[in-house]
């Protein structure tokens, strides 16, 4: 039976300090003492005690030994691993419980190391169905402070000072938005939480709603108090049934604990909250369309101004904030604006949650301070590109954003830098692409999405996006011309200038940014009639190279009998008949079937 587990740190620092020798020595000693059956050894990522390296941890006691030399191993084996006594001489000195926790957190691989968890502080730690666990982590104390110790103006001032900007993508200063709504006269005002997260590949808001619903409720009450709203709506898409269920449960609990309703904390402030469901229209993430949808109208945007802060829901002053924006509020109230402003860059404060997806090893949610380098997110936190492929581009901001390429890897992630580079922060989807992705096809994919989701109210978006998609399809079919690229560019610019809402105005972005960074790929499609990445089916051809051993497997698996040849001789594909389904390439034992 395994009695002890020895974990050796293999971070760079410990490696330099000789952790590899340590491991060899351990293996030797364990053999010598016949401990193979009771001790297991494995190496691990950095524990974070780099100046004390090499470091090991012995489980189950969780003892940390530091600054080890190969000659210490014998003592550890004799005393700890055989007799079960800790070698005090070698234990990392003065380790506090916090440090011990740190060891374990570091042990949990690089994914967590570089992250700064603020919005996601509770998600994955507390039970979202239990309000007590939220309160035990400091929840609702910020609200108490705001309601009892501050005036609404002071709350707005605090948020303004923190430098918080809208996390939905646009990056409008939250404090300013609240101030505008506060200053507009109105007997009734509303606060809306925009939880209509629709970007392909983005799921940050869902994680917050499902994992920590009370943080959103607390943020909304605070916002309501600041602008003078007594009614709030959470506009959540119906495709998130679990989020809706947990949110409704959380609201019910908050009412039970008198954290929603009348006279909160005896301050005289009343606030009510309701969840409203969207019906799966992407355009309803646009604020005016969202409000129309809550009112029971068809979800279509209208002209701005008037802005929602002047005349919003039912023509009353309204503030619409994204889930993540609101999730930041409670902690700013509790810890103060200076704390928040100390994180991030000069103009982009705080942290941002990203949903990492696509061709990356560690897909999932990451929260990083603003200003982190793209390279760090992709290679350190994301673990790089799978299968040793080459990084090509990362798409940020979903269908409204653009691509960043290899030369942007050292760019800092903040609102202004991303805009400058022709992309945008967006809500936080980050889709990584490798050399096997065709950029024309990527642009076509996003356009297909916007054409589907265009509400049809304004002509540039309704007709223009469709025309752009047709041109892109023509190019991927191999029928495009150089003239098409010019038409595409001018069309893109005029849609950008003339569409009614954000959806149409940003729809050409994927085209413009891929055209800028990957012009050569477009040229290859229209001039050489080739798809360099081998994605556009009409432009690729399957053929069999000299590695063919003539086994005939491909011939038997071809659904249209396009492959012929005699056994033990090289086979050929009849490209006129070939469907390009790729079935042959899958079964070929020598990988002799390739695309051109």
């Amino acid at each position, binding site marked *: 039976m395994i009695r002890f587990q020895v974990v050796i740190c293999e971070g760079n620092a410990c490696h330099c300090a000789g952790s590899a020798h340590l491991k060899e020595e351990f293996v030797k000693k364990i053999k010598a003492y016949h401990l193979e059956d009771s001790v297991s050894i494995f190496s691990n990522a950095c524990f974070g005690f780099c100046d004390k390296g090499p470091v090991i941890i012995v489980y189950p006691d969780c003892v940390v030994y530091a600054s080890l030399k190969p000659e210490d191993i014998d003592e550890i084996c004799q005393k700890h691993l055989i007799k079960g006594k800790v070698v005090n001489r070698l234990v990392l000195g003065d380790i506090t419980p916090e440090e011990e926790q740190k060891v374990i957190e570091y042990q949990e691989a690089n994914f967590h190391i570089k992250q700064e968890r603020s919005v996601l502080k509770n998600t994955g730690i507390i039970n979202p169905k239990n309000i007590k666990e939220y309160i035990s982590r400091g929840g609702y104390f910020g609200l108490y402070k705001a309601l009892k110790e501050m005036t609404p103006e002071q709350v707005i001032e605090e948020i303004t000072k923190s430098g918080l900007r809208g996390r939905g993508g646009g990056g409008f200063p939250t404090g300013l938005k609240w101030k505008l709504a506060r200053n507009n006269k109105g007997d009734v005002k509303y606060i809306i939480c925009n939880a209509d997260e629709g970007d392909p590949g983005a799921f940050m808001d869902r994680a917050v709603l*499902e994992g920590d619903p009370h943080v959103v409720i607390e943020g909304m009450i605070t916002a309501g108090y600041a602008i003078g709203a007594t009614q709030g709506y959470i506009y959540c898409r119906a495709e998130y049934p679990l989020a809706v269920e947990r949110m409704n449960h959380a609201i019910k609990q908050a009412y039970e604990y008198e954290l929603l309703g009348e006279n909160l904390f005896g301050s005289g402030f009343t606030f009510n909250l309701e969840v409203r469901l969207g019906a799966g229209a992407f355009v309803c993430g646009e604020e005016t369309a969202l409000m129309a949808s809550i009112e029971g109208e068809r979800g279509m945007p209208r002209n701005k101004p008037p802005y929602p802060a002047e005349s919003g829901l039912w023509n009353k002053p309204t503030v619409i904030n994204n889930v993540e924006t609101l999730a930041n509020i409670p902690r700013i109230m509790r810890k103060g604006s200076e704390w928040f402003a100390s994180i991030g860059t000069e103009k982009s404060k705080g942290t941002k949650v990203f949903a990492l997806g696509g061709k990356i*090893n560690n897909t999932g949610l990451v929260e990083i301070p603003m200003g982190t380098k793209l390279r760090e997110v992709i290679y350190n936190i994301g673990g790089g590109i799978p299968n040793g492929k080459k990084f090509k581009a990362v798409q940020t901001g979903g269908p409204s954003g653009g691509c960043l390429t290899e030369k942007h890897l050292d760019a800092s992630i903040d609102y202004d830098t991303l805009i400058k580079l022709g992309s945008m922060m967006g809500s936080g989807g980050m889709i990584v692409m490798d050399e096997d992705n065709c950029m024309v096809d990527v642009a076509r994919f996003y356009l297909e999405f916007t054409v589907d989701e265009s509400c049809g109210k304004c002509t540039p978006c309704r007709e223009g996006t469709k025309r752009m998609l047709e041109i892109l399809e023509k190019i991927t079919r191999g029928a495009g011309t150089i003239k098409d690229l010019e038409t595409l560019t001018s069309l893109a610019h005029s849609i950008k200038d003339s569409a009614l809402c954000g959806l149409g105005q940003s729809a050409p972005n994927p085209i413009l940014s891929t055209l800028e960074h990957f012009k050569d790929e477009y040229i290859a499609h229209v001039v050489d009639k080739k798809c360099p990445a081998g994605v556009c089916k009409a432009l690729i051809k399957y053929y069999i190279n000299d590695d063919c051993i003539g086994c005939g497997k491909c011939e038997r698996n071809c659904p249209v009998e396009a492959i012929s040849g005699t056994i033990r001789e090289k086979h050929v594909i009849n490209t006129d008949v070939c469907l390009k389904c790729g079935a042959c390439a899958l079964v070929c034992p020598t990988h002799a079937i390739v695309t051109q």
Partner: protein
Amino acid sequence: MITLADLEKIKSENNFKENLRRKKNHYRIIVGMATCGITAGAKEVYDALEHEISLSGLKNVEIGEVGCIGECALEPIVEIYNSKGTRTTYCKVKPEDAERIINRHIQKGFVVEELLLVKNKKAGKVE
């Protein structure tokens, strides 16, 4: 009406790390049950763990569900806190692993090595 004192009381009574420390030799098992986890089979894992706990009659374990831990590619994820506040993360857990986890980790105090998150995760490097 809820007061600050009430909040403080709830806070001090429900700090799970404090509670674990007080009770000594207690464990808190949490299962990531957001959409990503449930799709990967977290509900079945949760039920299996609950079943194992009731079978072995353990009284020093509490089990609960939490939201997304962020490692969506490695779901279902199970985390165990011990009385020292130490957290162990297991990933890609299947219902049939529940027995091992309860038997080895909770009853005998050993980490189930092959399920450790760190062993299943690709380490990142700057290129």
